């Protein structure tokens, strides 16, 4: 909690304020992200957690303005305060603004879940990294290659110079993800957005990549927005966490607050449904029902039809509840927080 109050004093690297992202569908316009506010302090790892369709990726894509039709940012501001250079509102930039191109892969870069789709299959790894370098830095081809080799060595690729001439298909999944990380970090970004960076990898390789990312993050003091559904990865990587459900943040706090003293019934349900490594063979607690579609968001608290603590006439009335301070010292969007304190 001490960490939380300290951050308020300095300007955070990124501030997302009341973001709403809509998609036009056959069933009308749906809000995939609705009223999300989130700050990312410099040099910290912020986890964005939730199940498929909760809007975690859409939130992250909005930061780089990667939302494509039929989607659009309808409301909200995303302000970036880089260490060097002027603050900017990403949402105010034009689609073809030069500043946007400089931003992508420059101050803010991104790594994706599936390294094979992030890499071009018909260009060598060297060419792809050099392209990323020369888009943002005025260096000669030879200098870019030297930088590329240096970066590949830093992400733990043996025989880096030889690897430059290889194509992605000649590499294993873990090696490819290292290449993608090298490419994302070669421009020394202040913010790295990592969308499920280890989900496609085997556990022993996942452990290697997590270790690598933490190491590089400390060394370069990059802030990371880590999108994941794996609470184990969150526990081991993140400083702060925001939990999303149906396009809204339902709980946020430090990693210890969220995982040790979860307040929102949804977060509690998620944690309880993990088959714990210590629990016996009894029945797993599960969350009733399934995530409703975005075109049928329930009234009141969107989680109320699945909530074990649902109270008629309270939880199903009005609009979705806002985040408010919880008894545990962080924030949760639940009307019955005080009543839940004693509940398991």
């Amino acid at each position, binding site marked *: 909690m001490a960490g939380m109050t300290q951050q308020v004093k300095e300007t955070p690297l990124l501030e997302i304020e009341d973001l709403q992202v809509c998609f036009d569908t056959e069933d009308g316009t749906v809000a995939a992200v609705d009223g999300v506010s989130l700050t990312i302090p410099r040099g910290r790892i912020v986890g964005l957690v939730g199940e498929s369709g909760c809007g975690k990726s859409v939130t992250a894509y909005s930061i780089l303005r990667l939302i494509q039709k039929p989607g659009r940012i309808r409301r909200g501001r995303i302000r970036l305060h880089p260490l060097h250079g002027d603050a900017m509102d990403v949402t105010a930039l034009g689609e073809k603004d030069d500043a946007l191109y400089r931003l992508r892969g420059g101050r803010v870069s991104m790594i994706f879940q599936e390294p094979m789709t992030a890499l071009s299959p018909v260009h060598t790894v060297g060419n792809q990294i050099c392209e990323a370098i020369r888009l943002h830095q005025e260096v000669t081809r030879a200098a870019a290659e030297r930088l590329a080799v240096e970066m590949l060595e830093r992400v733990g690729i043996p025989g880096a110079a030889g690897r430059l001439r290889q194509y992605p298909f000649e590499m294993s999944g873990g090696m490819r993800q290292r290449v993608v990380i090298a490419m994302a970090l070669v421009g020394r970004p202040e913010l790295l957005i990592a969308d499920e960076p280890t989900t496609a990898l085997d556990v022993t390789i996942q452990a290697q990549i997590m270790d690598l990312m933490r190491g590089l993050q400390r060394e370069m003091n990059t802030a990371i927005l880590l999108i994941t559904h794996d609470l184990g990865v969150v526990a081991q990587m993140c400083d702060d966490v925001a939990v999303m459900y149906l396009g809204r943040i339902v709980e946020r706090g430090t990693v210890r607050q969220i995982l040790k003293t979860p307040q929102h019934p949804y977060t509690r349900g998620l944690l309880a*449904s993990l088959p714990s490594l210590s629990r016996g063979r009894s029945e797993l607690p599960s969350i009733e029902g399934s995530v409703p579609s975005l075109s049928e968001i329930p009234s009141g608290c969107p989680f109320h039809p699945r909530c074990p603590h649902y109270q008629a006439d309270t939880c199903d009335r009005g609009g979705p509840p806002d985040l408010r301070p919880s008894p545990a010292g962080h924030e949760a969007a639940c009307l019955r927080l005080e009543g839940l304190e004693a509940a398991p």
Partner: protein
Amino acid sequence: MITPRQSVTEPLLSVRGLCKYFPVHRQGLLRRKTRYVRAVDDVSFDVAPGETLGLVGESGSGKTTTGRAILRAIEPTRGTVLLAHGGERLDVATLGRKELKGLRTRMQMIFQDPFSSLNPRMTVEDIVGEPLVIHRLAKGRVLRDRVGAMLEKVGLKPEHRSRYPHAFSGGQRQRIGIARALIMNPAFLVADEPVSALDVSVQAQVVNLLQKLQRELGLTYLFIAHDLSVVRHICDRIAVMYAGKIVEIAPTEKLFNRPCHPYTRALLASVPNPDPDVAMPEVIHGEVADPGNLPAGCSFHPRCPHATDVCRQEAPVLRPMGEGCQVRCPHPFD
């Protein structure tokens, strides 16, 4: 509560020396076999009636191929697969087409991806009832009743029967897949990563359903997965595969508390714990072995922190270690 049944009784399934090699051809004027990918190599285990055996390993370890070869969804290269059936034991690996078809009612499969494993142009009723139609076991009213009863058993409503798969969520689709597998009253099920494509909250529902059905119907599962926490929750015994071979097989709690093989240890240590107070997972270096290009000796030796000259030269054999545990390592932990 399911009590782990050890092989005191006759096993329902005995797999011995199961191999599946895929030939790799080099392109040329004369297509010549150059080498074999040993996807599954000398796999042996027993599964007792009512037991759940977990098969875990990383991608390319051969766990899915093993499951498919047992059901003869692919033809095994060598080995026997004995399935108890009406007082006798039939070798699935060598049965003729006709006998095999008869035996299919005894063994079924649940697939990983509930999106690609259901035909989008068939209704739920047709999907779930199709096995009965193919085997001419029911038609008309009887068929409808059996499908309805099965849907209810897996937690779906009878009015769901006329809908198409696209109208269901991932968890519900997996229930449809389970209903299709169970409609024939099989004794033995291969569940290939049945919950890995599902969200955590739904995963728990499907795991609970599988356990409930096992209790009610006395099912025997071969549960293939890479998620070790799910495996620990559901399995009585676990076999760990690496590069096509079983490297360790042991009762679940024994395996988790005192793993004997260095690879099992590394695999367990790599799982990130959802408790922020537990330290970062240990890192083992190197990459998963390529079954098409295996190192000499023990396949794990290039990554093993305890490898010696013996490991680099001789391929180890699976040896019993006591407590129902078998290990393929010359220097196992005790």
